[in-house]
């Protein structure tokens, strides 16, 4: 490994950190301009002026905004995400379990969807413009076009209510046996797979087809290689960069974009946690979750960038 690559990678990571810092400012400002007031939201319709004042003071809402920002940033840098205003619980420990649940679901959805999408993409290229290609594209596009709540309800209707194969609600908890946990996430993972499948599959297909136009593919064909060999040895390695990009984008979606699926399947992940606390104006939690989501997005994008750099032979073998 030579220095230009290391330098490029170091640059990407530094840029990522800078971006994360900028996002933290945005998140903080964004949460400040939300309408309404935390104390009011916690007490709801039954708030009196007296109890509002009590709560506001207890929550430290009377400090100016910039002081609260630096207190918050300082806390995060030392690993302290603060405590939730509404429940008084430590945010880090409350998020821990939920983040783990979200990652668990995203991981298994990715394990199923990524190889499936790429495999189907390869298959579609091999039989391009034929019946198989059209069938794969048609089904994948259809599943993507359906809104995820509809897919979710369809799955619940058939697999949970009619046939009772899988549970319709995916409540998971600590100490749940692994197999039971897998059974619980079967339906949400399937729904997520169906949602992200087409994007990755179509992108794989397009990227490889693009490469297939090149002269060296023609040469390979003339050499007498089989179509699969050509795709595997010559086309796919040169199409990795765009494919990795779209895979990372979808992985990020699996982690940060699953609110609807979580609600339908009652899955205790980050999305539901975020929504609950936005509704309660629980700013520290919203900030912490927002920052985690941003970090996930930025990290995955950095990985995609680095993979693209590494996949590029001109960068791997500088003159």
């Amino acid at each position: 490994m030579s220095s230009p690559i290391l330098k490029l990678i170091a640059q990407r990571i530094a840029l990522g950190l800078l971006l994360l810092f900028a996002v933290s400012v945005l998140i903080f400002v964004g949460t400040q301009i939300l309408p309404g007031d935390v104390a009011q939201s916690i007490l709801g319709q039954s708030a009196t002026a007296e109890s509002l004042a009590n709560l506001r003071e207890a929550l430290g809402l009377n400090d100016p905004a910039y002081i609260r920002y630096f207190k918050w940033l300082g806390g995060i840098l030392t690993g302290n995400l603060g405590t939730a205003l509404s429940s008084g619980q430590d945010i880090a420990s409350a998020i821990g379990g939920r983040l783990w649940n979200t990652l668990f679901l995203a991981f298994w959805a990715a394990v199923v969807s990524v190889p499936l999408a790429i495999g189907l993409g390869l298959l579609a290229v091999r039989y391009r413009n034929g019946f198989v290609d059209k069938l794969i594209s048609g089904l994948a596009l259809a599943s993507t076009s359906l809104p995820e709540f509809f897919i979710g309800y369809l799955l619940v209707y058939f697999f949970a209510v009619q046939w009772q194969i899988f549970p319709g609600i995916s409540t998971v908890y600590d100490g749940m046996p692994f197999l039971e946990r897998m059974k619980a996430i079967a339906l949400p993972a399937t729904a997520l797979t169906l949602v992200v499948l087409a994007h990755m599959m179509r992108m794989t297909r397009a990227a490889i087809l693009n490469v297939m136009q090149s002269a060296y593919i023609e040469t390979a064909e003339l050499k007498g290689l089989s179509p699969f060999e050509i795709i595997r040895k010559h086309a796919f390695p040169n199409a990795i960069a765009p494919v990795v990009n779209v895979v990372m984008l979808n992985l990020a979606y699996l982690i940060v974009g699953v609110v609807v699926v979580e609600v339908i399947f009652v899955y205790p992940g980050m999305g539901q946690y975020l929504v609950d606390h936005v509704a309660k104006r629980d700013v520290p939690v919203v900030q912490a979750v927002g920052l985690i989501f941003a970090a996930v997005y930025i990290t995955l994008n950095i990985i995609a960038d680095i993979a693209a750099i590494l996949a590029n032979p001109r960068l791997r073998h500088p003159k």
Partner: protein
Amino acid sequence: MSNELEYLSRRVAAGKLNRRDFLGRAAALGVSAAFANTLLAGAAKAEGPVKGGVLKAGLQGGESSNVLDPALNLSQVNFNFGKCWGEMLVELNPDGTLENRIAESVGSSDDAKTWTMKIRKGIEFHNGKTVSPQDVVATLERHSDAKSKSAALGILQGIDKMAVNGDEVVITLKDPNADFPYLMADYHLVIQPNGGKDDPNAGISAGPYKVTVNEPGVRYGGEKFANYWQGDKIGHAAQVEIIVINDATARTAALQGGQVNMINRVEPKIVDLVKRVPGVTIQAVSGKGFYPFNMFCDTAPFDSNDLRMALKLAMDRDEMLEKILRGYGKVGNDIPVNEAYPLFPTDLEQRKFDPEKAAEFYKKSGHSGSILLRTSDVAFPGAVDAAQLYQQSCAKAGIKIEIKREPGDGYWSEVWNKQPFSLSYWGGRPTQDQMYSTAYISSADWNDTRFKRPEFDKMVLAARGELEQDKRKKMYGDIAMVMRDEGGLIVPFFNQYIDASGKGVEGWVSNPAQEMCGGYALSICWLAA
């Protein structure tokens, strides 16, 4: 014949005859299958509760930001779980009377100002300590502290001082209040060791179940407390579990799929569909909750009683009930109370939709131009549709209503109790006095109709201190008449609590006080073997 059938049904309940054979014999005796099934259910009930097992409820109304502290309980999940682990001084029976729990007896002085509660001996907390009068006083102190965030702060404001006298708690009120025992049934007032002052979120009280799982917004679990003071009277299942399912469709699917045994909040629009699911029973009960249209009596144009009357008469209650609640409710009479309250004056005339009379009053008020009505999805389910229906019925009386749909975020802080004409909801209170004092007397914080009448306040105050029941009922009749004819409140309907129970669930007793058998569904139901 009926004797033989009854004998057979008891054999089934005792497990000596299977269900199919029973139905076969019933058919041979010329009995319809439906009737035979009813007989079986009756026999199962008579056979007594089945002990053990896990009873699960899928409930709406829980968030990941919830805590166990009863003082901060506002949503359904905490309310229901609180009834599993918490024990109260007194509890509201389905018929509106009070049952003594931790308080063995409750008595008052002749002027209803000094109340004495004898604390039952030998009740054990989950942590092994014994419930003492000091714990009771500490609990009331914590909830009535002026700095307290307790939702029960308002109802305890009338307490002047508290003292322990042997095994009695003596409470002196600032003003006479004949309803005081009812206030003690407020679901926030769970008796905790040292009043929960040490750790309000510990989840320790003297209820039938001990807290074993506390995952806010996800699930809660409890196991039967071996030393529960009422023994096996309630708390039949060995374990109870609450799964938080805020999505209505997911909740119904979970009940259908058998993952939970009961659910709350079945939406009126799908009740008829849910009814058809085999094994599922809809449990609907009329409650005290209502959905008001609030007018500020001190703000133009609503300061004219003629205009208020016109707007009341222009409400087509029957259509509203049919279209918004699909009939699962009861029409209102522009007063904030109904038959679910003790001492309700039943002889009031029902106000009806009368566009001509409304037009007359409208003309008399001299108002012209449109009237702005604010609504939002969060006011109550169907509130936007309700506003539109009202707009149409008002048009029949020549009254022009302009609807403004407000965002749900901030509705309770910016619109309700701030704008002169808006939609809202009230969940009801234990007694009529509480309902009137909370929102319709001059000094009330939540006077969301700005109804400020010194004479009216005096009437409410006088009724509060009256211990003679018949006289009191008459007084509430007079109060209701003033409210109905001069108040700023339009009540199209009272809603129902619509829950559903699944296959094999027995022992359900609906309670108009609250959903899910008054929160006790998990404790009083059992799963038929």
